[in-house]
């Protein structure tokens, strides 16, 4: 898994790439929690995620909860097909706020 964090119009965009699985999810968790901490709006760009498992989803859930505690806003954007499917199977597609594109996420 690779990642980068971009600041754009007041939002922090975490871009995750590749497989977010048991091996890489600790790293994903760390970067997500770090970004959420203190930032008002966090968007997670999932367009390049090729695979995500329950540990990766758990990192997203944890970041969402942390963001809520901080009074921030947390959303997923441009979820790739594999990501979308796992969220759907886990019945979490209604728990997260999802935007089709990064631009939409910034404007919202």
């Amino acid at each position, binding site marked *: 898994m690779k990642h980068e964090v971009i600041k754009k119009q007041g939002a922090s965009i975490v871009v995750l790439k590749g497989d977010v*699985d*048991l091996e890489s999810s600790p790293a994903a968790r760390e970067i997500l929690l770090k970004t959420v901490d203190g930032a008002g709006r966090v968007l997670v760009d999932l367009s390049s995620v090729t695979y995500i*498992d*329950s540990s990766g*989803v758990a990192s997203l*859930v944890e970041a969402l909860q942390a963001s809520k505690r901080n009074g921030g806003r947390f959303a997923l954007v441009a979820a790739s*097909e594999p990501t979308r499917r796992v969220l759907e*199977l886990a019945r979490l597609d209604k728990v997260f706020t999802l935007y089709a594109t990064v631009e939409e996420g910034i404007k919202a």
Partner: protein
Amino acid sequence: MKGLPPGGERRNLNRLDRRESPALAGHLELLAKMSGHLAVTLNIEETIQKALELITKYVNAEAGSLFLLEDNGLRLTCKASVGPVDIRGITLKSSEGIVGQCVMENSSRMVRDVSTDPNFTHSVDETTGFRTRSILCSPMSTQNIRLGAIELINKKEGNGLFSETDLMMLQTLTAAAALAVRNARMTEVLVQQERVNREIELAIEMQRSLLPAARPAPFPVCGINLPAYEVSGDFYDFFELGDGRIYFSLGDVSGKGMDAALLMSKTASLFRCVGKTLHDPGALLVTINRELCETAIHGMFVTMVCGMLDPATGRVRLANAGHEPPLIHRNDGSFSPVPASAPPLGIIPLEAGLNGIREELIDLDGGTLYIFTDGVTEGRVRPGQRLDVDGFKAIITQYNGDSAATRIQAVVSRLRDSGQQRHDDITILAVEDLTRRMMKDDASRCAVPLVSLTFPARAEELHPVREVVRETCEKCGCPPALTQDLVIAIGEACQNVVRHAYKGVADGEATLEILCRDGMLEFCLTDSAPPVDQEKVKPVWPKEVHPGGLGVCLIHNIMDRVEYLPAPSGQGNLLRMVKFFKRHKDET
């Protein structure tokens, strides 16, 4: 014979006949002509009109009429008429007048001069204004069945009176006409019969269309219906709900005729229609009962079994209203009946709940549920010997190694091929815990796995394992979306081994085996860690999300069957996951 053209001999004979007996030759010619005319039409009215015209003309009578018996032989009605006055439609009592006497006595009569005959009825002349002088009358009958008579009135030539020769001629011609009438009548009956047959064929077709189409294997429900006569008072049906559960039903309407068939159609439609939204078998039977009671046909009722199978668990909810107890054939070979908990439907209103139709909860556990009508158990296998429940059990046990469809077909074949007359419809429905059964079959056949992969139970090893799963699923013909799901499920299963089973112990190993056959993929994941706590591997639904519970929840959502078993080696755990699928290329 030499050099004689075909037919030449006959022409010679004709010439001879004419010379020696012109009257006989004329008769024969007329008979041939009349037979020819009568053969071309099978319409009875046309037949008799034509026959009468020919006869009247040939005997050279002024008028002719043809009477047929009607009203069970009580009346004679004029059906054809030739001459100055059309008397068609006139009716006489069957013993009235010369025609009546002629028919009653089945003998010909001639009244050379009516003015001297006491039997002559003047009523017709009075109505028509026609003056009758001389009458010939000959009865029409075949094989002692009286049909009517032909009456000729007044010879056109000479003194207007008939002769003995005229009577003989009429007798001959009437016999031919009688045959023609009988043929036309038989044809009419045949045409009528043909129409009824067509109606029945349509009813059969309609009924067939109400039965569900057999699903390609593997599918856990199958049925068979063999009507005793043309249409059936039995039915069965099954359909899948959106969540994978399968609703099924079997019913037997009292009686066996068209009335039973129509009530069967109604009940089957109610099951399918109401069952789409009402997912409780007991409550569904209560609702169908209410409908049947409201529009009850006196004295008719329906015995019916209705159930819901969850293929993922092999569990069935079953409700039985007055039907012969279905049998559960268990894994250990034993049979147990499920008795009715309510009276048949269509008799008295029933309430849902405690006083209504109770549901039985059955765990098939690899077994099969058989629902059948009494036409099966009461069917004869030898003169005086019924199949009975014991005979049914024996056939099922004998064919236990075969598919459910083969097993129920074997029962039907035994009854059908016994040479005994069947008096009742035969219907059987089999509902099986296919997943568990197939697993058992596989174990007993020592199926060779497609893939057997042993890997270190470490997080960094999971990616290559997932790639193997992806390739294998694609090779087996899984559609892409299903392949993606299966990769997710197996990824989660492996992850759980890494995270929980070994609890971070570095040198643990896991083995993944993949088996594929007949539209079923089976994944067996074995580890050698301490036994898994069953409570911890129950699916946990989000809200209190933690990765372990979420993973199990994903596995359960994707797989048709998930089982945690002890590893065959005796140490460790075996996680068995089964998925049924339609091959990608089969779908297109």
